[in-house]
């Protein structure tokens, strides 16, 4: 109900109705009063003139036969049709028209206004001088025809009023529609904008200036809104990207820091360990010299020495991880050299159910570092690949190449020479992948591996300013990709002396 009352159209029509309700009765009363007055005045004026005429005639009558002439005059007056009552009063007698329609004892007083006394008869009295005395002429005019004329006129006024009211309401309805329609359209358009369709243009096409202005401002506002909206969503997207980048960087930093910490720890332990290993090795070798070669003790000591040597090489690898074993002087060498050497070695030990394929371009692909460490990297990566395919067999692919600005987020833009080692083995799940570069992490059975291989690889590649990435799918294989910064081509003299 309130919604209806507050509607613009209902309000407009309501206002018009209220104005009409106040105005129309007043107008009607006013107009009908004027009409009534007009008719009454005309009626009264004409009957006054007529009665004056009759009075003059009466005054002129001769004395002899006055009564007979007077009655004849009264009769003729009545017969004229307007007069319904006529009498003449003398001091002693009263003369009546013989055909008067009213009873003889007429109302005693005159009418001063039209319609007085509700008897529908207008009485008027004239005093007529008859020489020594005067008589009163009293006439009664019929008001009915004039009353009927007034009623008819009033009906016409009423009809005109009704037409006016109807026309006013029609105009109000039309006007309210004209005003309200663009409002409703604007509202619908604004609703579309609010519900997300911000590209719906506001155009109500009204001819009303205020509505046009409102439309213009709303449209302006919508454009601002769309602009702000686009700006905001752009900003949000940018923030998401930078947040993602930040998280990524944080994760990588954390990872690097953890590995560096473990490396430092490993370095410290390695130092102590080497000090402890020294007397073990020396005393064992001393002891071996003291006993005959076929003594069981000699065998024991040889085993101790062998174990000590293994321990020594383990520590060497730990130190590689903690970047302690830096080569004397890093040199530029072709990537292909140590890779081919390592593959030649691997072909000796890898069973025939595993195919080893090397794909390399003709270019030298020079990198800066220690070739023997790259050799170790290849051996480690290939050993892992081989382990993953040991039961099933498969293909071990080693690919060399060059790439500029690799599309990998972990690698800074630049020129790289790439070493890729790919197997068709059992693959690794993401949980394992997250830890493979950490020292002492291994999936092998106790005793089968130290878990240092990949951390050593990581250490070597980091020390060369490179990056290693891994992709793996459980069941279909693993690919390690090593990005080493491309070095400038070697000087010809060095190239000539470099091993082919």
């Amino acid at each position, binding site marked *: 109900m309130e919604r209806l009352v507050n509607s613009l159209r209902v309000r407009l029509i309501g206002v018009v109705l209220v104005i009409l309700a106040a105005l129309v009765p007043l107008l009607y009363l006013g107009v009908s009063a004027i009409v009534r007055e007009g008719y009454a005045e005309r009626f009264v004026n004409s009957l006054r003139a007529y009665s004056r005429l009759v009075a003059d005639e009466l005054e002129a009558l001769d004395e002899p036969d006055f009564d007979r002439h007077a009655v004849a005059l009264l009769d003729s007056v009545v017969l004229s049709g307007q007069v319904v009552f006529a009498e003449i009063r003398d001091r002693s007698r009263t003369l009546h028209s013989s055909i008067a329609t009213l009873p003889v004892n007429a109302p005693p007083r005159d009418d001063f206004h039209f319609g007085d006394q509700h008897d529908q008869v207008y009485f008027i009295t004239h005093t007529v001088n008859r020489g020594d005395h005067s008589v009163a002429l009293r006439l009664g005019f019929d008001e009915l025809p004039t009353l009927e004329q007034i009623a008819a006129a009033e009906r016409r006024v009423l009809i005109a009023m009704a037409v006016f009211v109807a026309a006013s309401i029609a105009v109000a309805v039309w006007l309210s529609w004209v005003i309200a329609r663009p409002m409703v359209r604007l509202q619908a358009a604004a609703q579309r904008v609010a519900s997300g369709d911000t590209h719906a243009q506001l155009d109500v096409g009204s001819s009303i200036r205020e509505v046009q202005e409102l439309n213009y401002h709303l449209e302006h506002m919508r454009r601002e809104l769309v602009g702000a909206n686009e700006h905001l969503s752009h900003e949000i997207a940018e923030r998401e990207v930078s947040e993602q980048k930040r998280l990524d960087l944080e994760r990588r930093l954390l990872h690097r820091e953890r590995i560096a910490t473990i*490396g*430092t*720890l490993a*370095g*410290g*332990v*390695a*130092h*102590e*360990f*080497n*000090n*402890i*290993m*020294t*007397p*073990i*090795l*020396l*005393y064992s*070798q*001393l002891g071996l*010299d003291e006993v005959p070669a076929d003594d069981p003790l000699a065998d024991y000591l040889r085993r101790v020495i062998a174990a*000590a040597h293994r321990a*020594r090489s383990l*520590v*060497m690898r730990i*130190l590689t991880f*903690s*970047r*302690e*074993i*830096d080569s004397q002087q890093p040199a530029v060498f072709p990537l292909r050299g140590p890779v081919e050497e390592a593959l030649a070695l691997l072909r000796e030990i890898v069973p025939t159910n595993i195919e080893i394929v090397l794909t390399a371009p003709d270019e030298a692909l020079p990198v800066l570092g220690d070739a023997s460490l790259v050799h170790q990297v290849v051996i480690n990566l290939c050993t892992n690949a081989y382990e993953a395919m040991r039961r099933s067999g498969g293909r071990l692919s080693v690919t060399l190449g060059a790439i500029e600005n690799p599309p990998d987020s972990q690698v800074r833009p630049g020129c790289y020479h790439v070493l890729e080692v790919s197997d068709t083995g059992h693959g690794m799940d993401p949980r394992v992948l997250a830890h493979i570069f950490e020292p002492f992490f291994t999936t092998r059975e106790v005793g089968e591996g130290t878990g240092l291989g990949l951390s050593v690889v990581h250490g070597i590649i980091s020390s060369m300013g490179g990056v290693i990435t891994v992709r793996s799918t459980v069941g279909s294989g693993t690919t390690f990709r090593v990005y080493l910064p491309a070095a400038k081509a070697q000087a010809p003299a060095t190239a000539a002396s470099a091993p082919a």
Partner: protein
Amino acid sequence: MANILVVDDEVDVGEAVRRVLERAGYAVTVVSNAAAGLDAVARQPPDVVITDIIMPKVHGVELIKILRERHPRIRVIAISGGGSFGPLGYKPEAISTHAYLAAARQAGADEILTKPFDLTDLIAAVRRLLPN
């Protein structure tokens, strides 16, 4: 009989080296720090000094430098375990063993051995320095 002075803060290492070299026919003295080493050299200059690099107070490189200044004829073998010496080490400035070994070579060490070394490597190094 050639005299050999061993300087190492690790008593076990010094003792093992002493036994090996004595069995090879050398006269060996073992001390556990650079100051004691310099004292021993002052008392009786040895033919060869075998010194650890990473030692408390005065480290091996300093010792080698002093020896080179005062006794240019004494031959020196530098020995060291690997490792880094930051949080867990002796020196706050934490430089790598290789840097130390390189510094030792620069300071005038004739031979470099990294721990743990084989008996044969030790004797071979000494023999290279003492051909007689």
